[in-house]
């Protein structure tokens, strides 16, 4: 349900699984095909979407490709190194991370270097998060045992998990200069202080029936007062909210109304709205993005209703293909509170703004 304030639909030349902000004016997208060259694009948001007044006078409703580059490998994750012109990508084959540079005087994204990571077999690829500081470090790993932080410039390993745990990682997120959060595919969550030897505060481990589910998680940024700031999402639609001080007992949980488990659990994504309290977005189950207001839940795990569902990727599908498009990723606009970007497997890219009918926000 819900109503759009604004909705713009675009078609990229190839589908993307990444949407990474470069300041608040542009995003990076990248292709994830395995057998061909993929493009990494730095797109500038349409000018029109940056202004509030006199939108009508701004004919610029198009994305601009500001920079572009070519990757021989598929790109499943892309991170911008804050305050630099560098990007780090990860994908398959999972034995290297690639570092790129976006320059001012050219529109080509140049490959700068590669970072060798622990050899991984099959379809595992390392998750990436960035410790941004004077000397940025790249946190990466496909399994808990391979978790490392590598100095971007010297390529020296500055931190290593040092554990033999082979649990597969699903999400990695840097929280501040010393801590990061991880979520394993099994649902195991942990917060790690890199100044200490491996001793994460974490939850008890996978719950009953967990083997059938795959999990991902995200830690929320802005907080107003105490309350849950970690959201974890299961491939069957279960959404748990946790307080970092007690990862073993979720504060609240609900079940998203999905008709079937996600066909591609790796694409599951849950995000906190940076500009709204207790507001989450969920995607990866189908061609929709769902927005939830966690305060409206009773928290006991029953079905919850989204305050808004973005169905554009299904409705605007032009060609009648057998498979409906699947939303591959979504992201919130850094400072426009109700604006999101979402991308789907049919190469569509949407920018939308929903009307909030809740009493107070």
């Amino acid at each position, binding site marked *: 349900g819900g109503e759009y304030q604004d909705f713009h639909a675009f078609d990229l030349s190839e589908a993307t699984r990444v949407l990474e902000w470069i300041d608040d004016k542009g995003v990076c997208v990248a292709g994830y095909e395995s057998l061909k*060259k993929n493009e990494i694009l730095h797109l500038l948001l349409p000018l029109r979407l940056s202004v509030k007044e006199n939108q009508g*006078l701004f004919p610029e409703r*198009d994305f601009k490709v500001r920079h572009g580059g070519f990757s021989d490998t598929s790109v499943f994750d892309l991170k911008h190194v804050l305050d630099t012109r560098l990007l780090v990508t990860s994908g398959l084959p999972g034995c290297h991370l690639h570092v790129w540079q976006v320059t001012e005087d*050219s*529109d080509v994204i140049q490959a700068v270097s590669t970072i060798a990571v622990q050899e991984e077999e099959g379809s595992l690829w390392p998750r990436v998060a960035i410790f941004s500081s004077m000397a940025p470090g790249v946190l990466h790993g496909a399994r808990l045992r391979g978790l490392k932080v590598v100095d971007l410039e010297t390529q020296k390993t500055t931190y290593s998990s040092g554990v033999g745990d082979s649990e597969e990682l699903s999400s990695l997120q840097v929280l501040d200069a010393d801590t990061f959060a991880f979520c394993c595919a099994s649902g195991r969550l942990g917060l790690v202080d890199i100044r200490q030897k491996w001793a994460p505060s974490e939850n008890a481990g996978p719950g009953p029936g967990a083997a059938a589910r795959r999990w991902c998680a995200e830690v929320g940024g802005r907080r107003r007062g105490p309350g849950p700031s970690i959201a974890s999402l299961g491939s069957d639609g279960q959404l748990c909210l946790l307080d970092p001080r007690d990862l073993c007992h979720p504060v609240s949980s609900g079940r998203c109304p999905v008709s079937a488990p996600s066909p591609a659990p790796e694409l599951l994504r849950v995000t906190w709205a940076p500009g709204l309290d207790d507001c989450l977005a969920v995607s990866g189950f189908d061609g929709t993005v769902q927005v939830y207001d966690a305060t409206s839940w009773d928290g006991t795990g029953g079905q919850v209703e989204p305050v808004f569902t973005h169905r554009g990727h299904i409705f605007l599908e032009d060609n009648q293909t057998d498979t409906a498009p699947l939303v591959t990723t979504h992201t919130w606009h850094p400072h426009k509170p109700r604006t999101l970007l979402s991308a789907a497997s049919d190469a569509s890219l949407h920018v939308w703004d929903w009307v909030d009918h809740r009493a107070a926000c």
Partner: protein
Amino acid sequence: VCGVNGRFAWLVEGGAGQDVGRSCILVSIGGKNVMLDCGMHMGFNDDRRFPDFSYITRNGRLTDFLDCVIISHFHLDHCGALPYFSEMVGYDGPIYMTHPTQAICPILLEDYRKIAVDKKGEANFFTSQMIKDCMKKVVAVHLHQTVQVDDELEIKAYYAGHVLGAAMFQIKVGSESVVYTGDYNMTPDRHLGAAWIDKCRPNLLITESTYATTIRDSKRCRERDFLKKVHEAVERGGKVLIPVFALGRAQELCILLETFWERMNLKAPIYFSTGLTEKANHYYKLFITWTNQKIRKTFVQRNMFEFKHIKAFDRAFADNPGPMVVFATPGMLHAGQSLQIFRKWAGNEKNMVIMPGYCVQGTVGHKILSGQRKLEMEGRQVLEVKMQVEYMSFSAHADAKGIMQLVGQAEPESVLLVHGEAKKMEFLKQKIEQEFRVSCYMPANGETVTLPTSPSIPVGISLGLLKREMAQGLLPDAKKPRLLHGTLIMKDSNFRLVSSEQALKELGLAEHQLRFTCRVHLHDPRKEQETAMRVYSHLKSVLKEHCVQHLPDGSVTVESILIQAAAHSEDPGTKVLLVSWTYQDEELGSHLTSLLKKGLPQATS
């Protein structure tokens, strides 16, 4: 022999900014010079708006230098400088364009002239008569029709989409060709199809790339936005003015509104101004015969006069109370009915005007789109604009995806990207080069690019010559080049390779002989005849593989070389051998001479 290596050269005069630019490209191909488009730069008010034609030729008349001019479509940044070029600078050769372009161009040019001269009081601008005279030089072409400009240069127009009558042109001289796209669009519209070209494999594809870096939002979103705005205005009781030029875009918007009105059960009237309906009929016929089958089928059903909710407008209706939507000409609000209606409605903030495209500087349309809210009208009257001003561009250009599609269709050897700004498009260049394995050029304004081509020239070889070559032994290897000696005869666009003798015979020429003569001094007191005999014996023994003969007159021959002995005029002890040979026996002759210079062996007694 000329023209063996074809050369291209081109020159671009482009403007700055995306909507504001001008196109004017010069191509030299196979000795022919073609000018592609002749645009006006809309951003300038002075001579800078015209291309600098002195680039083309410093002295000498343009008519002599240029073989033809081709105009891709009626937008002023592609044809706006045409009357200036043909009538004020001076060009009397043919100007090619499609039929719709021919019909619409003069109207836009006249409109533009009126604004420049009447509204802005400019001097040094072309006159109405000049526009008429210029259009007399136009030769209209049909799509896919091969037009012979002269016996060597031919052109062909392809459907470009974009606007009514827009075409891409193939220019061909012999086996070399260039394709110029003008502005085109690869995604079909409601009333215009997508551009299309066959696998013509030109040496060079020149494509507009101003929009290569844009990713356009979907048409459905734009349409939805348009409808939302109109609806909002009408819901609050406001009046909506939509200035349009003519058939095409206006029709598309009408179809949209009609469907929406039906679906939402809206009652507010929609009007179409009379000025439009008159022109509409004419353009409608023009358009229908020009467009392709598929568009014709879907379009014909929605005849303009069959709209349920859209009626013909009467001037008096503008004063009726309540909401309404009106389509009126002209498109830039610079005169006529649309301006009249605008003046009536501008003061009410409930009303709305939706500008459908770029407006020329100096027009009311341009002013309000720039944010101006107080306009000075005739008689120093100030009009305060309180109505909502919206901009809704539906015109379509090719983005990067579209350019890649077109390159894939045409399969050129090289691609040249033309763009208004000197911005870097290294990424697109690399993309094209990698994907299609072709060279990609991106010259700046005023730059010349030269592309070498290697055209294949068929030459017929005479049977006699061929046989002679074969007889020399060594069967020819089909894949390897073989060096032949012959004479090339060029006659009536025909190339033939024959033996020298046959050529001489055909041409009725006598063969000239080159003979060299050398004098060798020998010390020999005997009689001439004896010297000759000695020479003969010596040569016979030394030159065993050659035919040495002693002729009855005393001279000695070695193959065709003649040696004669004579007494020295002053010194009877010295004999002078005259050695003469033809050019063909140069080598043997030289050898013989040096041999004789060494002297003869002592005679045995």
